[in-house]
C-alpha cells in the first residue's frame, strides 16, 4: 500500500536520508524504532507530505507524492499531496487538538469542511468514535479541560473520523505522563486488531514487540535492519541495533 524507493532528503545542507527503500502492505503493522533524531519521525512525515524530499519516490495507494520546491509549490502538487493525506490519518506527539473547538467540534470539523458530509450523520459517527475510546461524556469539553491521555485519544478519533486507509502515529505517547500511556496504547491496539494498516514511531519497546508485524530500526537517517519483532529483539543482525536495544531495554 505504501512504497518508498531511494528516498533522499536534505535539510539546510544536512543530508538526512541517503536512499531509503521500504514497502508496507495493506493491513500491515510496522513499528519504527531507533534513537532520537534517527529520522523515524521525519520518515513518517515525508509519507504524508508534511516534510518535502528532494529525490526518490513515495507512492501511497497508487498516488505518487511529488517532490517539490518548498517556497513555491505548484497548486496541482499541493492537491496531490492532499489526496494522499485523505488516505492517511496522522497522530502527533503533541496531540495538536484545535484549542478553540470542543472535543466534538474537533472531530466533525474536517469531515464537514473537507468531505462535505451531512452534519447530523457526522455528529452521530463522532459520538460513536468517542464511545469507542470511552470519553463520550467529554464531547462538549474544550481540549484544555482534558488530560493528556484523553487529548491523544480524541486526536486519534479525529483522524479516524476521516475514515483513513492507514494510520501514522508519530511518537504518540512520548509527551504523556507514564500513567496515561496505557490508555492510549490500548486504543491503538484495538485499531490494529481491527486490521488497520498502521505505522508507529515509538520508544515503547514492549508495545512494539506486542503489536508489530515488522519492526524497522532507524539510525542516522538509515534503516539498519527490518524484520519480525522476535528476530529484531532476540537476535539483531547489526551491532548498532544491539547497542541501541540494550541501552533502551535497560531503562
Amino acid at each position, binding site marked *: 500500500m505504501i512504497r518508498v524507493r531511494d528516498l533522499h532528503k536534505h535539510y539546510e545542507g544536512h543530508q538526512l536520508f541517503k536512499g531509503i527503500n521500504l514497502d508496507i502492505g495493506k493491513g500491515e503493522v510496522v513499528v519504527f524504532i531507533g534513537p532520537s533524531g534517527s529520522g523515524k519521525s521525519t520518515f513518517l512525515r515525508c509519507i*504524508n*507530505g*508534511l516534510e518535502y524530499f528532494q529525490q526518490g519516490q513515495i507512492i501511497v495507494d497508487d498516488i505518487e507524492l511529488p517532490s517539490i520546491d518548498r517556497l*513555491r509549490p505548484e497548486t496541482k502538487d*499541493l492537491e496531490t499531496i*492532499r489526496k494522499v*493525506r*485523505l488516505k*492517511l*490519518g*496522522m497522530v*502527533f506527539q*503533541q496531540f*495538536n*487538538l*484545535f*484549542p*478553540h473547538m470542543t472535543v466534538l467540534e474537533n472531530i466533525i*470539523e*474536517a469531515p464537514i*469542511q*473537507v*468531505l462535505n458530509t451531512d452534519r447530523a450523520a457526522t455528529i452521530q459517527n463522532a459520538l460513536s468514535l468517542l464511545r469507542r475510546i470511552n470519553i463520550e461524556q467529554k464531547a462538549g469539553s*474544550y481540549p*484544555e479541560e482534558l488530560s493528556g491521555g484523553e487529548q491523544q485519544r480524541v*486526536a486519534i478519533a*479525529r*483522524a479516524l473520523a*476521516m475514515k483513513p486507509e492507514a494510520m501514522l502515529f508519530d511518537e504518540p505517547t512520548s509527551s504523556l505522563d507514564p500513567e496515561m500511556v496505557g490508555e492510549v496504547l490500548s486504543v491503538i491496539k484495538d485499531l490494529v486488531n481491527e486490521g488497520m494498516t498502521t505505522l508507529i514511531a515509538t520508544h515503547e519497546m514492549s508495545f512494539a514487540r506486542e503489536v508489530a508485524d515488522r519492526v524497522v530500526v532507524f539510525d542516522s537517517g538509515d534503516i539498519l535492519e527490518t524484520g519480525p519483532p522476535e528476530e529484531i529483539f532476540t537476535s539483531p543482525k547489526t551491532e548498532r541495533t544491539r547497542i541501541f536495544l540494550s541501552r533502551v531495554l535497560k531503562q
Partner: protein
Amino acid sequence: MMKNIPRVLSLFISLAVLLLWAAPFASASSLEKIRQRGYLLWGSDAEGGAPYIFPDPKDPSKLIGFEVELADEIARELGVTAKQAQNAWDSLIPALMRGDSDIAMNGIEITPQREKEVLFSLPYYIYTEQLVVKKDETSIKGVDDLKGKKVGTLSGTVAQDILMNMGGVDVKIYSGQVEPYEDLAIGRLDAVLLDLPIAAYYGKPNPKLKYAGLPVGEGFYGIAVRKEDRELKERIDEVLSRLVSTGRLKDIYVKWDLWNEKQAKLAGLEKLFQEKGYVSLEESKKAPIYTFFPALLKGAGITVFISVISMALAVTLGLVLTVIRLYGRPPLSNIATGYIEIYRGTPLLIQLYILYYGLPNIGISLNPLTAAFLGLGMNYAAYEAELYRAGISAVPKGQMEAALSLGMTRGIAVRRVILPQAFRIALPGVTNDFIALFKDSSLVSVIAMVELTKTYGILAASTLRFFELGLIAALLYFAMSYPLSLLARGLEDKLKRSKR
C-alpha cells in the same frame, strides 16, 4: 574666610530674589523690550497666506506680502527690524497673549469679541467679503442665493460669522485659505466667501472661478497688541497715521493690487477710532458654557461615527493584507508587505492630505467623509495587519500540520483553524488600536471634517475660551475612550485565564 561663605551665599540669594521680584517692574514696557531686543516679533501665518504674508516663490526662504512690507515700515519707525513669529492663523491671538509675539497682524478683523482680549491699533485696511463661485455657476448671483448651498470659508473669520448668521447655509470650515478655492474648483463646494484680498489672490486668477456679486460687509484689519501694551499701541497708531498721510500705505496697496476707493476712508478713521467707535458685545463672550454643549456633542457624534466606520475598514482590510502577505504568492505578497511598510512608515497627516487634496490633481475627488474613512481605515489597516501577523505566528506550527494532515486545504486550515486562534491573540491589541484611532480621528479636521476637535477649534477661536472648551472637549474624548480601554483590559485578562 571659610566661615564667611554661607553669609556671602545668602547675600547673593537675597539679591537674586530681589532682582527676580523686581524684574517685572523694572522692564517697564514691551516697547522698551523691543528696542533692547532690536526686533519686533509679529505673529502671523505664512501657510497659504498670500497676499498677506507668504514665501517668495522665487526664494522660498524669504517671506513677502503686503503685511510684510507694513511690518517692516512699522519696525523701521520703532527703530528696530521686524521678525515673523509663525503661528496657525486661528491661534495668533492666544499666542500673542501668551507672549509669543509683540503684535499680531495677519488680516485680523477688529471684532468686539477680539477687542475684549486685545487692544487693536487703528485700522490699516478696510476689507470686504467677496463671494466666489465656479465659472459656469448661474444660480448664485450673490450672498442672498446661498440658502442650502455648500459654502466654504476660513475658521474664525468674519465671513464665517456672516454665513452662520444667515441660517440655512451649509457652511464648510477650513483652516487654510487655499483649500476652499481648490475644493470649489473641483466641485466640492458651491461657493466661497472670504475677505477680498484672499479672493483677489486665490479666487480671481483661477480660470475655473469667478466673482459673484459685489463685495459685502465691511470691516477693518487692525494690529493686535496685549491689553497692557497701550504705549506700544499708541506708537503703532502714530506710525500708521503717518503711513496714511504720506501715502506710503497706499503705495504698498497699489503694489499688491489691493487699493480701492474704500481705503481712502482710512485717513478719516483716526478720529472715529479714537472716539471708540466699537461697542463691545460682552454677552457673547460671557455666554454660559452649556450653550456650547450641543455643538460639541454633535462633533463627538461625528467622531464616533468616523472612528467606528474607519475601524471596521481597518479590521477587514488588515485581514486581507495579512492573508495575502503570509499565504499569497509573489508579487501579490510583496505588494501587501510594501503597503504595510509604507503606511506604517509615513505620517497619517500626509496620507490624509494626499488623499483629499492630492488625488484631485489626478482627477479623483473624494468627499470629506469618504476621505476620512479611507484615510484612517487604510492607515490603521497596516497596523491591524501587523497585529494579525503576530497573532498568526503565535499559533503553534502543529495546528497547521494537524489541519493539513486531516486533508484540509491551506485555505480551509487558515480560515477555520489558524485565524480564529490568531484573532483571540490579536484582540487586545486591536481594541487598543481602536482607542488610538479614536483619538487620531481628530486629524481628519484638516480635510474639512467638523468633528469634535474641529468643533472645539472653531468655538474656541471665535470666543477665545480655549481653556474651558478645551477641558470639555478633552473630557468628551476621555468619556468615550475610557470604557474602551476597560474593555481592552477585560479582554486581556480573560485571554490570560483561558486559551480559547
